């Protein structure tokens, strides 16, 4: 099977790759958001302590 055939997904490329792409985005966001929240939390609390 060639690369092109693989990505074409037998004509269902749009549906298959949109599914996998969206899933990837949602799963990554879920992991990244708490990391940012944690940084923001530490920054805010540090400011509070200095006051």
């Amino acid at each position, binding site marked *: 099977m060639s690369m092109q055939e693989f990505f074409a997904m037998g004509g269902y490329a749009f*549906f298959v790759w949109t599914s996998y792409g969206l*899933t990837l985005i949602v799963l990554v966001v879920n992991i990244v958001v708490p990391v940012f929240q*944690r940084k923001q939390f530490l920054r805010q609390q540090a400011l509070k302590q200095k006051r």
Partner: protein
Amino acid sequence: MPWLVIIFLLLLLPGLYGGLYLAPPDYQQGDSYRIIYIHVPSAWMSLFIYMVMAVTGAIGLIWRIKLAEIMSISSASVGACFTFIALVTGSLWGKPMWGTWWVWDARLTSELILLFLYLGVIGLYGAIDDKRMASKAVAILALVGVVNIPIIHYSVVWWNTLHQGPTVTKMDKPSIHVSMLIPLLLMALAFKFYYLIAVIQRARIELLTRERNSQWVKTMVSENDQ
């Protein structure tokens, strides 16, 4: 944590390789069926996480264990994400196969209600400032919503729906070929580990926010600030 990520990847990568490349195309659906490798595990997770959320919620409600409360609410956002994925990927499969993005079929509708239950839990938790009180309210909502879980699971049996019946979780032998089943099970396990990673991430920030006035968090903040 790093171990969880390694196990997750060790399950995910062969799962994807098996599902997208090794497994043959379906004789009726061609390659479009490959969406099931994320759709089915996501749908399973959406139910599984809901049960975890309800049970930990009940434990928090009865014994007032803080950690159970935190696990319960941290599960909600991950569960909502999986429910969303199950609905969207199902829709993306339904368009080429059923000819429609959406039907008000029993399975689809009850899964949509599950998404609203998750969103209700998240919204209710955010609306109450006292987080211990919020956890109580959320646990009751989650427990009431448990009624929806068997409805989703048995919807394809109870009603004559467009959504197909179970192929894997039935008493008989699964009606899916082993070359298609193995990647599916790998993906399902990978998603379990993903949930563990994501819920720990969420729980950490939840714990920090709740305990922001305690000494250990203050020490942590000042150490981090230097």
